């Protein structure tokens, strides 16, 4: 094999490795892209309070939706299904949750917003979805969400659905961590 063939071979092999790692780089790139643009209903997970309260807000309706993933046996419901809110004001909502099994379990809630272009105007000061939930057998809890809609929410959006899907992650959590699971994320 002559020199130039060897060089072509080396360059192509480097190309193959780069593309393999690029496929993994797509994972964070995709997350960052969705968070910046609010696509796919992804909400920024930061607790930063970037929106300040204002007095010039308008009214809109927020619907709360809860889902149980697969065989997740917990009871999981919003305390109120619908809430009238004002942009530029903090509001509190709660979700009722109960571990109906006889085993201690850990859960993770994953949020989503519809329509997805409302996601970037929704800020959460506090959310149970920031943390994992550990419940002993039969234990129940009220999980809080504290949120604010930015005043710049497009005027075409008058109705926002805030949905949470709860997942059983008991198997994925280190058993020792169960007791101090709050705030592991």
């Amino acid at each position, binding site marked *: 094999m*002559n020199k130039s063939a060897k060089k072509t071979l080396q360059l192509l*092999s480097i190309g193959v490795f780069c*593309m393999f790692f*690029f*496929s993994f780089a*797509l*994972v964070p790139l995709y997350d960052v892209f969705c968070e910046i643009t609010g696509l796919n*209903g992804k909400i920024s997970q930061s607790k930063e309070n970037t929106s300040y309260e204002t007095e010039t807000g308008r009214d809109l309706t927020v619907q709360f939706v809860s889902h149980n993933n697969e065989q997740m046996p917990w009871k999981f419901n919003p305390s109120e299904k619908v809430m009238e809110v004002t942009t530029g004001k903090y509001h509190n909502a709660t979700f009722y949750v109960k571990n109906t099994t006889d085993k201690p379990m850990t859960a993770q809630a994953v949020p989503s917003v519809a329509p997805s*272009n409302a996601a970037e105007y929704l800020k959460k000061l506090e959310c149970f979805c920031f943390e994992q939930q550990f419940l002993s057998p039969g234990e129940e809890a009220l999980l809080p969400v504290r949120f604010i809609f930015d005043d710049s929410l497009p005027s075409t959006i008058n109705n926002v659905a805030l949905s949470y899907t709860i997942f059983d992650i008991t198997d*994925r959590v280190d058993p020792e961590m169960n007791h101090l699971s709050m705030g592991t994320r």
Partner: protein
Amino acid sequence: MSTVIENHHDHHHGPASGLMRWVTTTNHKDIGTLYLWFSFAMFLIGGAMAMVIRAELFQPGMQIVQPEFYNQMLTLHGLIMVFGAVMPAFVGLANWLVPMMIGAPDMALPRLNNLSFWLLPFAFGILLSSLFMEGGAPNFGWTFYAPLSTTYAPPSVTFFIFSVHIMGASSIMGSINVIVTIMNMRAPGMDLMKMPLFVWSWLITAYLLIAVMPVLAGAVTMMLMDIHFGTSFFNAAGGGDPVLFQHIFWFFGHPEVYIMILPAFGITSHIIETFARKRLFGYSSMVWAMLSIAILSFVVWAHHMFTVGMPLAAELFFMWATMLIAVPTGVKVFNWVATMFRGSITYETPMLFAIAFVVLFTIGGFSGLMLAITPADFQYHDTYFVVAHFHYVLVPGSVFSIMAAVYYWIPKWTGNMYDERLSRLHFWLSFVGVNVTFFPQHWIGLAGMPRRYPDYALQFADWNMVSTAGAFLFGASQILFLFIVLKTVVGGKKATSQVWEGAKGLEWSVASPAPYHTFSTPPKVD
């Protein structure tokens, strides 16, 4: 004296005898032959699975197989036809033809060439063995969307992942070999813009393969990690996202569909040029069209997933980018038609397949344009209209071009002419079969029949029956193809070196059958 020299010659330069010749060979012609036979075997196996699918769909209701087995047939049919039949057939043609077309003695990396072929039987052996495993073969469709292919998959999915890794490694090695050969071993005087179009089409295809096969490997590696190592790439519970899988898959998948059609463009250009007895119209525009198609293929992937809930701006971008591909493709179709215009055409079998390719591939292209219209796609998505579309571009597209190539070059490979009468019969049976099978699927798709189900509503019964009849006609006529090829290998009218009156190019300057070693000293190209 002369006998001694003869023996000496055989010992060093002829093929080894016995079966080990095929295992240890590093000769590009031997490896090309291996690839082509392997691909034919896979074509028949994948075709048999298609027959199971069509037989079940002959009438509404469940008759022959269970829904679970139907899903396995559907998945394996797709995987085997894409990775086992079409891709290896094109690699086989590249092995046979690229060195002879550019005046090189062999591929640049002959041992790598041997390895990249011999990985394939193992990859597909593993994939097919999953049929006999507990829980059955993969049943999630050839697109293996997560979490269907991770959380809900049968245990055999791990074997599927391993076999995709192996076949990916094989195609990456094959394409590295093609590029190194084309970039470094062209005969003196053959500039890039003098290369035969089949060589150009393979150069571009090989670059596409190198860019996207590692991404496929990455996607299945992430699946493997989600299944066995507790990661959550595609699992929403752990912060992952199933839609991400579709993005990664189609970032691979869309260039992949051009990988399966670009070499067909090259083949068709050669055949039309030969039998129209005219120089190809617009050579350089053909090259630029293929390059544009290849580049555009990286920015259109999300048209496969318009319905996942993308913002308007993204849907518009992917719609327009997709429609833009029709421009270079149209250039190619017009160039082929312009080449035939006022040519003195004869209709030997390769030409019949090539003309059918141009007409039927264009029909597939038009239904692709219909699917590109985002609002309309919401209606067509996951219906039989999509099935009709991609079968039109893959069967009378890629597969017809491979058959055309086999008829066109088999006299050069075997030294014998094929049986013209039987091969025309094969063409007409295939042509009628393919249209009877897939054209009605446009209608039942527009009427709303969803794909990937073993059963359907009563109003689709008539056209499904027609479609199944066509499929069995097409399937049976491929047995005839096998017979014709075997007959040609065994004997037949001796072919001349040039074989076809209008044939041009270095591969026609060597004897038929092509000697085991060609162009040991490079020819001069002006």
